[in-house]
């Protein structure tokens, strides 16, 4: 019966479509393409680092791999993947037909593929090698054209990010169905509000810094070049004013995902809705005043180091509220340990480690020791891989039936989870002792006394590479041969599950009815509203399991 509604054809996914669902899928597939590119670069680095000598690639090329890996994973993988779910889910979750500015939305997406290809093309002229941070003066003296391509690509991708954020904020604030007040909208929308605020406030500052850096590089000005009287520390301030919030831009959407995935598969209401919603806003605000903690050993005077230490440590409080609330959501529930929930739980247990090491590196005297070491590499991979990427896979498994109309293979999904979880910890856990013991980051050659642990790290990373195969096989197989998905396979309460799978063009047959809060599991909804229409819906939802 669902097939009588108009559906998208496959050609639509390769066109300038203004349908937010098509754009969401375009974002997601593009992001995954760059994930595999960035992952391949990381594997090349790990092959190099399996031995202490620079024997697999030239050290110059190693720095190119390292710079490209970091930049691709941040700007072309996690950022677009967060935008993918925001695009796909926001209108469906709030009962809207589309985003507020559909054409702008399409423009925002179509900046990314050319931007990404342009970025990759820098390999032909010598890719940038000054790290994703591009600190001058090094970035001004290590390959002009690669560096300029890096600057222009990041400017393009930043523009796309700003356009997306304008759309998210407007859509969430203006286009909810009338019954949905701001405190009954799904927590994913709250986290996207917090994310978009950071994008809008932070990205222009990065753009300004990169334009000035570009003048230094091409026109010989000296804004940041000490050789002409410029100040390289000003660049670091401007860079981190965006790039620390960027960490939250990358992880907040997946905080939102976890708040959606856990209640559905644990069959319990989210624990502390308002605490989770407001803590997202608190993280967003605090995230704007912590940037100089990346500069504790740089040109930062002592008193300023103390200020940024205090603000950074305070972020642990709202983050802790979220982690404890998620644990309490699981407690006493009826956990359906499918792939989505496994990745959700994987997120919780890995992100915890990143959070704990985050408080440690906030402490200035300790950070002075571990700054720019593998301890920091371990820390941010626990946040961005253990946090964002695990959350992302939870989202893929949770919403794949909605997006494709097909169920995934749970066995392959569980294998994928087990391999990813083991490979991830094997790769990044040993980096903590490596950094503490004295291994600096961004090196192609290192002291032989660190070899044993590095071999373990490389082995873990190979397992991580292999773990993507069950995932790819699962997704491709499911798209073509998967069991058809009913409209609400998880018996979830948010609005996106009230329409067909995949949703029809313009989303809903008629305006969806808000007959329960987004997380009212275990609550007798019939007694709240005895309307017959509601009973029908409940029956339909129950019949689809």
């Amino acid at each position, binding site marked *: 019966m669902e097939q009588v509604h108009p559906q998208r054809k496959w050609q639509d996914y390769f066109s300038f479509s203004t349908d937010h669902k098509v754009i969401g899928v375009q974002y997601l597939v593009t992001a995954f393409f760059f994930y595999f590119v960035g992952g391949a670069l990381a594997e090349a680095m790990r092959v190099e680092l399996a031995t202490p000598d620079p024997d697999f690639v030239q050290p110059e090329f190693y720095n190119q791999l390292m710079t490209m890996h970091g930049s691709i994973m941040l700007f072309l993988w996690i950022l677009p993947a967060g935008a993918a779910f925001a695009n796909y889910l926001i209108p469906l979750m709030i009962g809207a037909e589309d985003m507020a500015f559909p054409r702008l939305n399409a423009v925002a997406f179509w900046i990314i593929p050319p931007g990404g290809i342009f970025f990759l093309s820098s390999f032909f002229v010598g890719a940038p090698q000054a*790290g994703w941070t591009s600190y001058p003066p090094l970035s001004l003296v290590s390959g002009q054209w690669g560096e300029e391509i890096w600057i222009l690509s990041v400017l393009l991708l930043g523009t796309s990010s700003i356009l997306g954020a304008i759309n998210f904020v407007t859509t969430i604030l203006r286009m909810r169905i009338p019954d949905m007040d701001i405190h009954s909208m799904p927590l994913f929308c709250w986290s996207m509000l917090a994310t978009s605020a950071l994008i809008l406030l932070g990205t222009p500052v990065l753009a300004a810094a990169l334009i000035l850096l570009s003048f230094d590089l091409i026109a010989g000005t000296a804004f940041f070049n000490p050789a002409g009287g410029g100040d390289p520390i000003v660049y670091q301030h401007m860079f981190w004013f965006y790039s620390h919030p960027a960490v939250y831009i990358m992880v907040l959407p997946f905080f939102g995902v976890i708040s959606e995935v856990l209640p559905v598969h*644990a*069959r*319990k209401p989210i*624990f502390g809705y308002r605490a989770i919603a407001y803590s997202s806003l608190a993280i967003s605000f605090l995230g704007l005043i912590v940037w100089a903690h990346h500069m504790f050993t740089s040109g930062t005077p002592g008193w300023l180091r*103390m200020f940024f230490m205090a603000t950074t440590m305070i972020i*642990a409080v709202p983050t802790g509220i979220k982690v404890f609330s998620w644990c309490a959501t699981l407690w006493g529930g009826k956990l359906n340990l499918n792939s989505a929930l496994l990745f959700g739980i994987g997120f919780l247990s890995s992100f915890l480690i990143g959070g704990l090491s985050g408080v440690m590196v906030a402490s200035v*005297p300790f950070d002075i020791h571990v700054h720019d070491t593998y301890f920091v590499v371990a820390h941010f991979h626990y946040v961005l891989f253990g946090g964002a990427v695990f959350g992302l896979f939870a989202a893929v498994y949770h919403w794949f039936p909605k997006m494709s109309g097909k169920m995934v293979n749970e066995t392959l999904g569980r294998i994928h989870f087990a391999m990813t979880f083991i490979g991830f910890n094997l790769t990044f856990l040993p980096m903590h002792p490596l950094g503490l013991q004295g291994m600096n980051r961004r090196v192609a050659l290192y002291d032989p006394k660190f070899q044993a642990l590095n071999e373990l790290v490389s082995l873990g990373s190979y397992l991580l590479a292999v773990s993507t195969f069950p995932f790819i096989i699962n997704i491709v197989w499911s798209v073509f041969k998967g069991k058809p998905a009913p409209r609400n396979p998880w018996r979830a309460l948010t609005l996106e599950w009230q329409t067909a799978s995949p949703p029809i063009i313009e989303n809903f047959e008629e305006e969806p009815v808000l007959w329960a809060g987004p997380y009212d599991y275990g609550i007798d909804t019939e007694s709240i509203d005895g309307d017959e229409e509601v009973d029908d819906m409940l029956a339909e939802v129950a019949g689809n399991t």
Partner: protein
Amino acid sequence: MKIPSNIVTLIAGITLTLISLWYGQNHGLMPIAASAEASEVDGLFNLMMTIATGLFLLVEGVIIYSVIKFRRKEGDTTDGPPIEGNVPLEIVWTAIPTVIVFILAIYSFEVYNTLGGLDPMASHDHLASHNHNYHEMVAMEEDNSHLIAMDGEKVALGLGQSPYLEESNPLNVNVNGIQYAWIFTYPDTGIVSGELHVPVDRPVQLNMSAGDVLHAFWLPEFRIKQDVIPGRDSQLTFTPTKVGQYPVICAELCGAYHGGMKTTLTVHSAEDYQQWLQDNTIAQTQSDANVALNQ
């Protein structure tokens, strides 16, 4: 016999605390501490490890317990209990982390102050150059030329003298970071060296500058690090307490051979240091003479 669950909780809590306290002291993750300041940092790290271990065990314990205990039975389509929150519990888990980070911030501040982190902004007058700058600044202020005065009194970055040490006579060494080497100059004796040699138990003050790009001077066994920035001065002060050889590492990406930019710090006994000074002063004079002859 059925054990009441609050006793089980109590026992679990005590076990968790004991494990955390033990692991916080016995993690063995840090390299040896070769200075009094390094032991201060380790004390702070041990406290953070204790707290982190406790929280880690608590949260992972809750997750693992939930996964085992609260698994859905096959065919059970009912929901869990509709618990939407618990205000006292939420206040507890907001207040406890707040107190913890408050304690950590104050403790970190203390350690940082002990390391001398708040010193470089204070104007000391035990150094001739500082004296000079100080008088210059006073003179300038009388002319109301604040901007120029600021230029004369550049605030050094990094770690200075600890307020807990009485004024002592530190060994001054000038450090210059270039791609991909560290050059050490001893202003008292004129020795120039690619390795750092210092006597044990005497404060060392490194006055650091960079010749080309950013570098960072890192002594893992001393837990200190400071970026070396072209066009700006920075400093590090430490007092070695253990004789031995330690790595000196560049920690800020400085180019392709960044990983190869390292040298050694040798901490000598007082006699050995005198011997090293003597040997090198003679070698230096001879090589200077050779240069003079060749001209």
